[in-house]
């Protein structure tokens, strides 16, 4: 397990290198690329100084990494404001949206998935299979716009644009975030359900479950006493993997609903080519993603004695 965590940290380190030195891919340097044809020597000099291009790369990298950790992420190129100030409230909005979506998605997906595994090959299972295949294939923005069309425009129940701010009460925030959260839920439930179904079926076909059947134990008791304790690990694993997926899916949903989150900031900054902000946002997204995947692995190791004490 220590090995797995070390590997995760190493991955994070390599990714920070990629993000920091990706800029070196450019034929010229970043300043030249941003100013383009109309660059004056004076403008170039100022921008280079601003980007810290006058210091050697390894020092620039260490500065940047230290800044990321301590929260001093430098200035945005587009509006000269501190990046930390831009990111702070947006990060908490994104986490709020993601958390809300997870609270809806996890119980639904687990229930549907377990039911599909229990009644596998039934009409219900096949219906669910078609439903999940379909919703996996839908682009996020398609689902989001359908929800907007029906619930915001036709019925007028919810706002189609989720502008939230810190002054709003918690309930108001929930209300305005419901449609984006529902879109994310629809996107992620299908994945989570299919994985839950697969891991439960995998478990139900193992010899000790068959033995319990042969002993004549009732199906409900087999599930609660024999299957569930062992199914917990794979299920938690499925949840963690899908949370990671959700964190990235947030980008598009935020753009559709004009939700003031980190994803929207990232997309805006990419089109403005505000590289320092893009780097900071990518680093945050990548770290959350890696952390969730890492905890999925760690949880499945900790809860499975056979993996915890490998022979």
């Amino acid at each position, binding site marked *: 397990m220590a090995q797995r965590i070390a590997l995760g940290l190493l991955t994070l380190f390599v*990714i920070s290198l990629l993000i920091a030195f990706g800029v070196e891919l450019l034929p010229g340097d970043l300043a030249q690329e941003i100013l383009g044809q109309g660059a004056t020597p004076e403008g170039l000099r100022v921008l280079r100084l601003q980007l810290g291009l006058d210091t050697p790369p390894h020092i620039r990298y260490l500065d940047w990494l230290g800044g990321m950790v301590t929260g001093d992420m430098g200035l945005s190129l587009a509006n000269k404001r501190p990046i930390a100030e831009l990111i702070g409230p947006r990060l908490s909005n994104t986490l709020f949206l993601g958390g809300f979506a997870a609270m809806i998605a996890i119980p639904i997906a687990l229930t549907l998935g377990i039911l599909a595994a229990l009644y596998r090959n039934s009409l219900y299972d096949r219906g669910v299979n078609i439903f999940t295949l379909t919703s996996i294939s839908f*682009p996020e923005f398609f689902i989001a716009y359908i929800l907007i069309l029906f619930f915001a425009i036709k019925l007028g129940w919810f706002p189609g644009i989720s502008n939230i701010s810190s002054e709003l009460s918690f309930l108001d925030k929930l209300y305005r975030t419901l449609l984006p959260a529902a879109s994310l839920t629809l996107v992620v439930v299908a994945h989570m359900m299919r994985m839950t179904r697969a891991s439960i079926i995998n478990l139900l076909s193992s010899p000790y479950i068959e033995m319990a059947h042969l002993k004549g134990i009732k199906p409900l008791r087999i599930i609660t006493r024999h299957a569930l304790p062992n199914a917990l690990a794979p299920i938690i694993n499925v949840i963690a993997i899908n949370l990671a997926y959700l964190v990235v899916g947030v980008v598009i949903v935020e753009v559709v609903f004009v939700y003031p989150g980190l994803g929207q900031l990232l997309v805006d900054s990419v089109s403005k080519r505000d590289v320092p902000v893009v780097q900071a946002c990518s680093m945050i997204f990548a770290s959350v*993603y890696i952390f969730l995947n890492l905890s999925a692995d760690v949880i499945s190791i900790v809860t499975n004695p056979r993996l915890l004490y490998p022979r």
Partner: protein
Amino acid sequence: MQKTLKNLSSAPLSAKFGMVVIFIYLVVAIFAPLIAPYGEREILGKAYELMSSEHLLGTDNLGRDMLSRLIYGARNTIGLALIITALAFLIGSLTGMTAAALGGWIDQLLSRIVDIFMSIPALIFALLILSILGTAMPYLIGTIVIVDSTRVFRVVRASAMNVAVMDYVEVARLRGEKLPWILRKEILPNITAPLLAEFGLRFCFVFLFISALSFLGLGIQPPTADWGSMVRDNATLISYNDITPLIPAGAIALLTVAVNFVVDWMLHKSSGLKDVS
């Protein structure tokens, strides 16, 4: 030939539906200039005209015919997705099979590099690269090919591993066959079934990925017609209770559903790879 036909007729309803849909899309994409009533970039009227006999689906934000752009969009979006998937497959399967056949440090090196790439979320990686290099077409294609070939590598390596340890591969090695021969004649024929299914899945991924990037305004650039950017361009209409932006989005969804249905059936038939999500 007869066997293929028999195979096709034994397919479940969902797979048949998928095949019909894919066929229609391909016809539309190939014969786009013949089918489309107007040109791809022609500005014909006012912006956001309603649906009429002249413009069956109305006009878009610049007054171009929606239907014609939808038809040309099939060609551009599907074509680009196919090119990218094919390139990713070429790179991914060559390196994957090589890693499996050679083993040792080459395998270790390639696998670790792929591990790192796979632990970065694809969309974030693409956004980072595109913000540095800009959204010109070669960079767009290159970025997605790199992202996707790592996924192909993984699947191909895993399937090729099982074949590479077979006795007949050992025999071929002892016979003194060179690496290209082993890859082409011994390994490739035995992994085509999972590869085909994987091609379908990868195509869906690439297709959705391009559409998502275009929707964010970072993919295929105007004035080229493309479904993702068509959704973005006409998105404001949704607040006037107009379903126009849903049409290109639906076109994307329908094709991916169709491909997924077919792939699902292929996976079940060749089994071994069941319930891979």
